[in-house]
């Protein structure tokens, strides 16, 4: 039953080139009050990603929790993390929560039934106006000396950049899971791994066994990370959106030890269909 709350969806938006009318149609699938948060973006690609990100949220909530479209209420915390406002409708799972990410060609969503979930996509972009070392130097304070060492001794410029992006991706997933969502908490969490599997962390210098992490590639040079952790680590504002933050060990492990599923590919057209059907069937 809890397994159903674990979802990982991804959409490749590179082939979606909407005309103004197409975009208006897509926008009309979402409640009016979300529109400005999409149209405010200056770049068209950012508007595309924002729109698909909202569609994913509505589609996920509708499909997994079976909530009728017009009853879905998604809000954002002060820090900007979206959450589902549950009334009587989300009792299937102890703490249904989700996170979205978008970068480059992909927009993705991940959900968990009990643990916090954070998701991040990073596209392997090669710095244009500076060398790789100059580029990564900008971010050195976000890494522990152990991690930094791993990055700069990775080998070729490409290998150095890869290690950098992988660490960054994982750190972002952690920070997004807690609801903080700022690049400035990144140095607090230090990652340990064996060839990027068996990933564990120290938070503020202390080993924390209540978190699990996974890192994989979506293709076309995009890394994706998932962080799953204890609700007690959430920011105050995000904690308020959760049903339960205290668990005994057994209860917590039920959520922590759920299998991590691989990403399911959805298309833009599929999302339109799902939402359109959901909207019309109320």
């Amino acid at each position, binding site marked *: 039953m809890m397994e159903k709350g674990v979802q990982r969806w991804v959409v490749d938006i590179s082939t979606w080139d909407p005309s103004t009318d197409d975009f208006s149609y897509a926008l009309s699938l979402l409640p009016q009050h979300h529109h400005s948060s999409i149209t405010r973006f200056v770049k068209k690609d950012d508007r595309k990603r924002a729109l698909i990100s909202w569609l994913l949220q509505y589609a996920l909530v509708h499909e997994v929790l079976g909530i009728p479209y017009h009853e879905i209420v998604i809000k954002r915390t002060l820090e900007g993390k979206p959450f589902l406002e549950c009334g009587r409708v989300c009792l299937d799972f102890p703490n249904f929560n989700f996170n979205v990410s978008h970068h480059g060609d992909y927009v993705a969503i991940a959900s968990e039934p009990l643990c916090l979930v954070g998701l991040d996509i990073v596209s392997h972009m090669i710095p244009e106006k500076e060398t790789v070392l100059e580029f990564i130097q*900008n971010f050195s304070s976000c890494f522990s000396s152990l991690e930094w060492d791993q990055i700069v001794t990775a080998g070729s410029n490409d290998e150095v950049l890869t290690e950098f992006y992988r660490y960054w991706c994982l750190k972002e997933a952690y920070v997004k899971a807690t609801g903080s969502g*700022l690049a400035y908490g990144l140095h607090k969490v230090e990652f340990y791994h064996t060839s990027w599997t068996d990933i564990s962390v120290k938070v503020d210098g202390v080993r924390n066994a209540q978190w699990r992490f996974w890192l994989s590639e979506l293709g076309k040079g995009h890394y994706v990370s998932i962080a799953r952790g204890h609700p007690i680590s959430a920011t105050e504002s995000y904690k308020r959106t959760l049903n339960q933050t205290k668990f005994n060990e057994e209860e917590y492990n039920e959520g922590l030890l759920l299998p991590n599923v691989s990403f399911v590919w959805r298309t833009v057209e599929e999302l339109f269909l799902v939402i359109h059907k959901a909207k019309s069937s109320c």
Partner: protein
Amino acid sequence: MASTTGASLKFTSLSSSFKQTQVPLRGVSNVNSVSFPSLRMRPGSLRFRVSCAAKPETVNKVCEIVRKQLALPDDSSVTGESKFSTLGADSLDTVEIVMGLEEEFGISVEEESAQSISTVQDAADLIEKLMDKNCA
């Protein structure tokens, strides 16, 4: 510190909620005892920047740095009110922008201060504050 003698009250960088033509001074005859019940003029309140907003040159420089970092087309509008996220800055961009500002203005931005920057104006104001400290 805000001085409230009528003539020297300057409102800069106000958002649309207050238009200069609508000052609620109806019925007040003595300008030295003006009270504005709808305004919370606490010292340190950041909502009303009384003569403390950054110089236009600083704001423009910030706009320039942001434009470059985000590779924005020349015709896109970047002003003091522009939010970095709306312009398309992801987390990597935001850190690089702050680094770029530190280099350009010879300042050092603390983590806590960096967290509160979300618009070009915020950045410009912080820069001037830090630059004043440097010269003190």
